[in-house]
């Protein structure tokens, strides 16, 4: 949009990747005089906001300077040799596929830093928290910006240690086991992925993603491609996560601190799907064609499974944790992304990339909101919160309740909000899959996936009803709950509870509504959700040319 010289763009992209790392190192040092702030803790938390803010600013300038007329061209590229022995080059660049993800990552990390500035997660030193957050940001941004297979692997691995410590040190109940499960699962996946990457690199003679994508798998035999796609696919599928490799995700989300959940769902999961689009589709198309029906089948199983798990968690008396519920909903949403990728059509892949961003915005917002609810109530357990009558957020904290309902409705894919387009396009792509893929099979997947959207709507509406509606003081709600525990009709509970309580003030226990800093952290996500929903061309205009080119034979 604005004209920025290539060398500045180059610097900006390098800064976006390296800046957080330098910031992480600086966070461990004592604050310089003049920047000491009120206390060392406050100074280091402010440092986090400053660094992530600078990275976000750089990312936004990068987006502005990006040549929107040629989104399929790699821009802001840097290409310098690093380890000639392994043919590893520091090759950075962004195109229409990676640019939105880079901006999303920078934005979400900044919002997380802002959020934890005002509401630091309980746990040990904020110094380490800041350093880990910044390393996490660097790893995520690097994995979207690098164009070398081994460098991608390095970036992919870089997020493991920070995320492990974020969960294990600042998490909630059961955090240690959850952190172990997270890191062991993803590491096993990514080491297997390394084998696939090495196979491709050694057989094709280069690790450069651009060269490999341009080659479009022509220098790789089908059997090599099949093995490579299997190995890489497992690594990426663990990260995404794809059913049945998802079982680390609910625990990790439940145990992670709010900020950890937001980043995990918002950006870390995207590394898996991004890898599918950037590496698997263009570099090994023949191998992908073999596995596409299986990937699609597992994806729709994930959609239905995630929704059913959420439905069962949302039931009265199920003891469902809200964070766990949203984690399972992520399994479902990422199922749509995988389904879109598995169609191997521009429509499907565009839908997948759109759903990726939408999920980052909406689920990020949902995790923020659930974190806020947990902070206010001291629990994220739906039964404790809502009892049988409902938590009545509309009444007790109308803005919080309203925003939660908004996020939930966006998540279920209401047209006009961001959640709609991605899932629609993914299903649309599955209706007419790429040549060589079985159409009847994909028609079945489309039907099952469409049924999944209904289930998604069902559980999200149940959650909204239980969390936002209701009309009882907590004490009475508890009693009603005890009488009808396990009762079949929660709706009648709410109705039964309404009569005996006259409208007396204060009917509802006082509850803090959205605080200013919360509004600042959440507003951008809500605004972007509306923007992407009403004007999808902003994103699709970026991704579509790049996707067309990737599927047809690489980028230039």
């Amino acid at each position: 949009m604005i004209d920025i010289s290539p060398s500045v763009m180059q610097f900006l992209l390098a800064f976006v990747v390296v800046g957080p790392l330098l910031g992480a190192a600086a966070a461990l040092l004592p604050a310089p005089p003049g920047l000491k702030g009120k206390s060392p803790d406050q100074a280091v938390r402010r440092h986090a906001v400053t660094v992530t803010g600078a990275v976000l600013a750089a990312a936004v300038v990068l987006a502005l300077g990006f040549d929107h007329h040629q989104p399929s061209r790699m821009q802001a590229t840097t290409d310098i040799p690093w380890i000639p022995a392994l043919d590893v080059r520091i090759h950075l660049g962004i195109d229409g596929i990676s640019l939105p993800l880079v901006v999303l990552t920078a934005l979400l990390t900044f919002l997380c830093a802002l959020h934890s500035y005002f509401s630091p997660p309980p746990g040990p030193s904020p110094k380490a928290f800041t350093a880990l957050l910044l390393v996490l940001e660097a790893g995520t941004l690097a994995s979207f910006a690098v164009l070398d297979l081994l460098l991608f692997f390095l970036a992919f691995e870089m997020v493991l240690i920070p995320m492990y410590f974020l969960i294990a040190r600042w998490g909630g109940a059961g955090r240690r086991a959850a952190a172990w499960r997270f890191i062991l699962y993803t590491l096993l996946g990514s080491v297997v992925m390394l084998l696939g990457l090495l196979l491709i690199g050694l057989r094709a003679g280069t690790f450069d993603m651009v060269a490999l994508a341009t080659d479009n798998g022509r220098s790789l035999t089908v059997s090599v491609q099949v093995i490579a796609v299997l190995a890489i696919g497992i690594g990426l599928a663990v990260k995404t996560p794809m059913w049945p490799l998802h079982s680390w995700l609910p625990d990790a989300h439940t145990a992670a601190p709010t900020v950890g959940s937001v980043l995990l769902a918002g950006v870390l999961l995207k590394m898996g799907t991004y890898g599918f689009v950037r590496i698997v589709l263009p570099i090994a198309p023949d191998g992908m064609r073999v596995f596409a029906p299986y990937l699609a089948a597992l994806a729709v199983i994930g959609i239905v499974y995630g929704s059913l798990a959420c439905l069962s968690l949302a039931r009265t008396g199920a003891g469902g944790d809200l964070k766990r519920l949203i984690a399972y909903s992520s399994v479902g949403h990422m199922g749509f992304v995988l389904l879109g990728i598995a169609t191997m059509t521009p429509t499907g892949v565009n839908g997948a990339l759109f759903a990726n961003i939408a999920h980052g915005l909406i689920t990020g917002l949902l995790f923020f909101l659930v974190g806020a609810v947990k902070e206010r109530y001291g629990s994220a357990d739906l039964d404790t919160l809502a009892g049988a009558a409902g938590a009545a957020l509309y009444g007790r904290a109308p803005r919080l309740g309203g925003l939660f309902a908004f996020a939930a409705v966006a998540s279920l894919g209401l047209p006009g909000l961001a959640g709609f387009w991605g899932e629609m396009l993914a299903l649309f792509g599955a209706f007419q899959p790429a040549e060589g893929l079985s159409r009847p099979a994909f028609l079945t997947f489309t039907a099952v996936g469409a049924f999944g959207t209904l289930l998604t709507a069902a559980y999200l509406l149940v959650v909204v009803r239980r969390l936002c509606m209701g009309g009882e003081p907590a004490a009475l709600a508890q009693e009603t709950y005890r009488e009808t525990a396990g009762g079949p009709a929660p709706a009648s509970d709410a109705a039964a509870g309404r009569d005996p309580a006259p409208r007396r003030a204060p009917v509802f226990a006082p509850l803090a509504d959205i605080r200013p800093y919360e509004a600042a952290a959440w507003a951008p996500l809500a605004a972007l959700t509306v923007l992407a929903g009403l004007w999808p061309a902003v994103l699709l205009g970026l991704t579509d040319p790049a996707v067309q080119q990737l599927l047809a034979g690489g980028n230039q």
Partner: protein
Amino acid sequence: MTAATAAAQAVANAAAAPADLVQTVDWTAVAPPVIAAAVALLVLVADLFVPPERRRLLGWAAIAGLAAAMLALLPLRAGDRSTFCLTTDPATCSYTADHFTLAVQFLVLGGALLTALLSLTETAPGRRGESGLPAGEYWFLLLSSTAGTALLPASRDLATLVVALEVASLPAFALVGLRRGDRLSGEAALKFFLSSVTATAVTLLGASFVYAVTGTLHLTGIAEALPDAPDQLATLATAGVALTLVGFAFKTAAVPFHFWVPDTYAGAPLPVAAYLSVVGKAVGFTGLVLVAVVAFPAYADVWGPALAVLAALTMTAGNLAALRQSATRALSAVRLLAWSSVGQAGYLLVPVAAAAYTGAAAIGSTIAYALMYAVVNLGAFTVVALVARTRPAKRIADFRGLYAARPGTALAMAFFLLCLAGLPPGIIGLFAKVTVFSAAVDAGLGWLAAIMAVNVVLGLYYYLRWTAVLFRAPAPAASPEPVLATPAGPGNGASATAAAPGNGALATAGNGTLATAPAPASTPPKDSAAPVPLPLAAALVLTTVAAVALSGYPQLILTFAARSLF
């Protein structure tokens, strides 16, 4: 004996040729091991004349000698020197200083130098009223063993190889058992000695078989003669190849020849354990590489799969055992490093196995990996030595709260452990593993790569568990944790029986160092108050700087993986 006569015969053959009887020796080429050996003798003699209070000088002399030996590598860096060649055939030499030799010699001398820095405090008299290790003997033995190990990669005939192997091993037995009056130390030395001597005997037998078949001791000669061996000698040749390899597999501590490692490491003085884990390992894999890749390429279809299976077993056994180390058991830190070194030996063997399929170029990955491993493992041992100064039980639990007491040391330790695990920010560990993986994938050993992948995950578990301990809040002084000294404690396979007397010895040990072991938690954590001795600090700084530099620019050692070293 067989090899001795064989060597005499070989010499006689050479001498019988109608040529110049007096060989010129390229002293520059042989300088690195010769300097180490000369300084060893010098130190031994000087020990007689130096008054006890100035014995510290001996240690510095040894360190200077090792540094000089490393400097002597500089003029050789072209990698084209060789000496002790046959007068009849100048291309067949007994001593070759090619790039493989230089890389291993650099590793060995550097490793010995760091070990020497670690040892300075151990040999210092008067610590805790204990006499310390006897300085003169200690330095002599360390330098002799180093000289032998430095000679090993250069040797290109079986006799020199076996002599170098013995020069490297014999002082090591004594080093392990050097702590006087310590039952654990004596037992470890005996175990090490018996199993090592058996292996050497087996190697000698194998070497004699090979000599009988080929009629030459030079590795290149064997490589040429083996394919043309007469049919009736085929069994003898195969047996000879197998037996020779077995001996070196023992030195590498490959499964099933690994059982001596944990007890030996745990019983030996800490610097000696560090030395064995790095330099001792180099002895094994260089011998294996020379014999397998240089001498027996004709039998690649035999030793290739065998080594691949051995590598898989070794890494799995080592990692599984390391996984089972209880953090609160005495010496668990050393035991964990010992078992993890068995696991790492498995990774080192992978490229050697791959060389059977893709040629000698794959060996570079082993060298690159070994260099990385040497730096970070010695770094980890340095930190263990540092922590052991205030908490001598050497338990992993003793590392709890290290970050609060010494942030720099804790960060360095975390970095070393993550390098060993192969995860960012330990970038060099990651890329060293990548080269090993790529050697396996390139050779078509996909199954081995997959097993290694699982092992990397196993390894991560215990390395990261240790890393997490470093950053936990310090244990409250009021709740002393009991040391598990029960004989039926959570033992690990082979070492369970040996551990019981080991712990008994700990509890009843008369000397002052270990008497505090049963109740280390009751002593207040005064880590931050205790000053770090200069040599330990120097070792820590050296290893940290090396590891960080390598992580920033991995090409420094990965360059070995990219070219042929022979």
